[in-house]
């Protein structure tokens, strides 16, 4: 069954000048159709301003469609009565870790969500423990979040969402402000959510290397979905991606350049290891 389904979804907003008068209408999303199944690991790629975040905000009833419909776990987001259910179904993680942490101790921060949902104290503690273990932050449970690194803070933010037992987590560029080590830690935690806990993951990013673990990739440009498929399928379109301001992983780029020079390498090489093997087969 589809956890998130969108049909002809469109979203427009007014652009206003300093005095608040309407200057024009911006179409941020245009005729989006999605069908994401429970347990999927979906990546959404696109340059800044392509509509990725606007789409993400529709998945948890922060924004409502101006056209078409989006259903989260079968519930229409436009129906006001569904709002709380929807927000518990999909959790959101945002870009800046510092904006998402409110507790002064890691475990209190993670407990904040379930506490607001009215979960019993005993169960809150169990959920806190379990969520911190999933993201690999259990040993930091008594620490102050302000003393953690960016990657660690972001993992605490993810644990805070996991503790609310969502069916689906939307991560909006969770690694954009992190260093390479922090980025690896967060991606590892996200993969564990999907593999071990079977939580549907929707990862919005423009780091191509993070997309290769997804089982489906949507590429967005100017409010439209312009490509969809497995990472391998999407990354075999090197030129089209470049046209919409995206690039491919370095190994893919190297393979593409060699193919242009006449070397018969297969399509859709994603990593250094795959490249090496493919090249060895030619020798």
């Amino acid at each position, binding site marked *: 069954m589809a956890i998130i389904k969108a049909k002809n979804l469109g979203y427009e907003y007014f652009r206003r000048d*300093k005095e608040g008068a309407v200057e024009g209408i911006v179409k941020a999303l245009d005729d989006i159709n999605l069908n994401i199944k429970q347990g999927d690991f979906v990546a959404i790629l696109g*340059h*800044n*301003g392509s509509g990725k975040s606007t789409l993400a905000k529709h998945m948890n009833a922060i924004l409502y469609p101006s056209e078409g419909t989006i259903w989260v776990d079968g519930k229409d987001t436009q129906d006001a009565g569904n709002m709380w259910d929807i927000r518990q179904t999909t959790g959101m993680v945002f*870009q800046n870790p510092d904006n998402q942490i409110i507790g002064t101790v890691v475990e209190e921060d993670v407990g904040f969500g379930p506490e607001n949902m009215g979960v019993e104290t005993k169960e809150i503690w169990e959920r806190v423990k379990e969520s911190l273990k999933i993201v690999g932050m259990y040993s930091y449970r008594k620490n102050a979040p302000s003393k953690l*690194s*960016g990657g660690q803070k972001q993992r605490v933010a993810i644990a805070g969402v996991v503790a609310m037992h969502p069916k689906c987590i939307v991560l909006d*560029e969770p690694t*954009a*402000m992190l*260093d*390479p*080590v*922090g980025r690896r830690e967060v991606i590892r935690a996200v993969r564990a959510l999907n593999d071990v806990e079977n939580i549907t993951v929707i990862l919005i990013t*423009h780091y*191509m290397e993070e997309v290769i673990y997804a089982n489906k990739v949507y590429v967005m440009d100017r409010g439209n979905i312009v490509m969809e498929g497995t990472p391998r399928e999407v990354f075999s379109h090197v030129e089209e991606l470049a046209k919409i*301001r*995206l*690039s491919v*992983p*370095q*190994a893919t*780029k*190297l393979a593409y*350049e*060699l193919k242009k*020079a006449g*070397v018969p390498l297969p399509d859709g090489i994603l990593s*250094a*290891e795959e*490249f*090496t093997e493919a*090249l*060895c087969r*030619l*020798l």
Partner: protein
Amino acid sequence: MSLIVNHVSYYYNRNTAMQSKAVDDVSFVVQDGEFIGLIGQTGSGKSTLVQHLNGLIKTQEGQICFNGEDITDSDFDLRAFRSRVGLVFQYPEHQLFEEDVFSDVCFGPRNLGLTKSEVELRAYEALKQVGIADESFYQSPFDLSGGEKRRVAIAGVLAMKPEVLILDEPTAGLDPRGRDEILSLIRKLHDQNNIPIILVSHSMDDVAEYAVSLLVMHDGKLVYDDSPRNVFAEHRTELEEMGLSVPEVNKIMHLLREKGIPAPADAITIKEGVEACLEILR
């Protein structure tokens, strides 16, 4: 122009129980026309070090000499010095504050006490250099895209006509195109104005592509100071132990070598990778 960093050390909370060493006996030289990449894990002391270079942090040990003058001397004019060493912070667009793009870029040179026409001329030149179109000049800087905002912020520093330009992770958080725009802008500034550049980065691919020499920091120490080629070819395992990596192309070369294929250990860019692979297949 020459900037000499001579045995500089810096402690946070010095002489307290919380004392921690952030920069540990670092020495290097910046000369005209250089393009230096500075890499290191978060917390390795990169940002602390670059803040020394324009006197935002006073040296506790060691000296920094700019054109032969010690910047820590009590009679050294630090205020004038700061406009000569341009420092672009992380997320510089957070420092935009004026009503429109043009006034924002004027802010720096106006504080130098220049005439109005000189201020406006400099702002105009700087905005042209970073490729902001005339029609955006009187827009609010907050209506621009992420990459454009960052270019406006860089223009604000360029309008001071710095003799050295230091950029602390100028591409963080930008999409691939925004990243390419900023990096080619930096290369253009370096080539056309002959300004020495220090580029602090987390991307090995970027420093491999752009930097001519590479500084590697770890635990406050400067561990390597060499060409990117040599650093990546010779110190792959050490870099990985420091939580850093080598460029993807270089990793492929190492993997090929492990399989007994004679790939060059010092190929680091896509272009070199392509040549190396074609050579292997020949």
